[in-house]
């Protein structure tokens, strides 16, 4: 196990995996935080905008903005899982294979 670990650490693919995956995960996290706290700040400071009707109806901008926040959470998880379970797991498999 210890030797495996040393081999993994020395494998440039490991550095590549960690760098790519961390950058990707943090980028998506920041995207989610920006979207969510953007929504919360709109609630705190932009009540007027969220309460403005779209066109001539009663539906306000708040409805699509709220729905967008919910749907974006789902889409962001989908984007991450797609790449992590494909590209990153394949890289990980190679690293584990080469460490044996």
């Amino acid at each position, binding site marked *: 196990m210890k030797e495996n670990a040393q081999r993994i650490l020395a494998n440039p693919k490991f550095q590549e995996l960690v760098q790519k995956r961390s950058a990707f995960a943090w980028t998506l996290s920041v995207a989610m935080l920006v979207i969510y706290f953007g929504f919360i700040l709109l609630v705190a400071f932009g009540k007027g905008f969220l309460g403005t009707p779209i066109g001539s109806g009663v539906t306000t901008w*708040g409805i699509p903005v709220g729905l967008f926040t919910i749907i974006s959470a789902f889409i962001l998880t989908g984007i991450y899982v797609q790449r992590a379970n494909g590209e990153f797991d394949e890289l990980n498999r190679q690293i584990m294979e080469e460490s044996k």
Partner: protein
Amino acid sequence: MRSLVTRFSAAAAAAGALVPASVYAAAVEGAVQKQATNIEAIVMFMIFVLATLGITFWAARRTKSAKDFYAAGGGITGFQNGLAIAGDYMSAASFLGIAGLVYMSGFDGLIFSVGWLVGWPIILFLIAERLRNLGKYTFADVASYRFQQTPIRTLAACGSLATVTFYLIAQMVGAGKLIQLLFGMDYLWAVVIVGVLMIAYVTFGGMLATTWVQIIKAVLLLSGASFMAFAVLAKFGFSPEAMFSKAVSVHPKATAIMAPGALISDPISAISLGMALMFGTAGLPHILMRFFTVSDAKEARKSVFYATGFIGYFYILTFIIGFGAIVLLLAPDATGAYPFLTTAPAAGALANPATIIGGSNMAAIHTAHAVGGNLFYGFISAVAFATILAVVAGLTLAGASAVSHDLYASVIAKGRASERDEIRVSKITTVIIGIVSIFLGIAFENQNVAFMVGLAFVIAASANFPILLMSMFWGKMTTRGAVMGGWLGLISSVTLLVLGPTVWKSVLGNPAAIFPYDNPGAFTIPLSFIAIWFFSITDNSQTAQDERRSFEAQYIRSQTGLGAEGASAH
């Protein structure tokens, strides 16, 4: 319908009026009166109980090792776990509470739905796969991975037990009131039934039975809510604009229901609430535990993807159902009557939403009645009960694991306890937690316990989440830093919550709150992180240096899954 109206006093109806701070557990507020016995609901609930007990019997025969008991053998698929997470997370408070909040004030309900959802992507990006790769049964396995076991396990177990206890009290009291309201059963019996069933599921069937109870509940709740939202939208030719337009015309707040209202009054409260909701989700022990039930990091990621989809979809449904309640309950029916209100409005006046029979938390239930008749009303009532059972079973298992796996096996027996002993302690703890929560449920019957779910989230966000996140990401962290950060987060969040308006003013009846904010998350979460940082970097002891050196091995395992727990053979 008439008999239903006369059985409720105006006081019971007014009791459901929501106060902002308590929306967390809206379903547990106020005094309620017993309703006429609801036969359809009882029959359907009996079917649910028999089916889940059958599953428990089946699960009991397959639950042999500790891994089976705590983690269902690690053999749950990502899709199943996604459903189970959704079933664990969508509590009666979020179903009835959010629908009730939307019914009372419209758009504000959406703010909570969003907050309850956005923690999930963060769990996926930063926590899920590392947690799965490093841990075995509890999040303390991960938080204490390279640190001294006794202090960190004790801290993590206290954080878990505090979170679980407050959450559990709110659920038990909510269960008692809800069942009294929906089934016409005594409060005492309702609480005892919930306690006994949760003990049965967890002691005999462990995580496998708990998982299946949660999956079944999630499917029932999602189908029931889908039908309701569909039926409401169908009445308006599937035009949300037509539905909103009607809602604005019958609600006394008129167009104000389409915009954020008084729920969030200032930016600090907004951000504080947002932080507690978002990071609290990532620190709930019963949720974190679910990641050990899948075979590897790949399945762990899939579980979050499915869970986020189900939970997000569900919150969109509750929003539609809340508006459905406005248009169906506040407008006269075909005969010109208002069957779901205690008092019909005067001619030409708008109906008052607060006069709803049983309080605002009944909005979703009455809407079920209005769209699907008695049978569907019975079904949704039974689903609400099943919802509580699934949540309390998950909580109880998490509490029992904190005691048996963290406190008993690691702290008391120093890792020398046999697997059998550990499971035995876990089962005994489950029975104790069950009995204690029955008593707590009875003791808190007439108390306002809604703030307790808020407390659970703040503790999870301020104590559990920082030590878990930092232990996985920051190589320079030491035992001392974790202990100081965790305890400071735990103590400060409990103290500030008690000194805040909800507890100090509303519950304890003092004239003014000492701490001005309902939600201390914006202060306690950073405090915990800063304490972890400060007490770690100033720690130059030999053990601290050893702990820093052992980060590399943990890092490799967390990234690649080298040496991670697999699924058991069967």
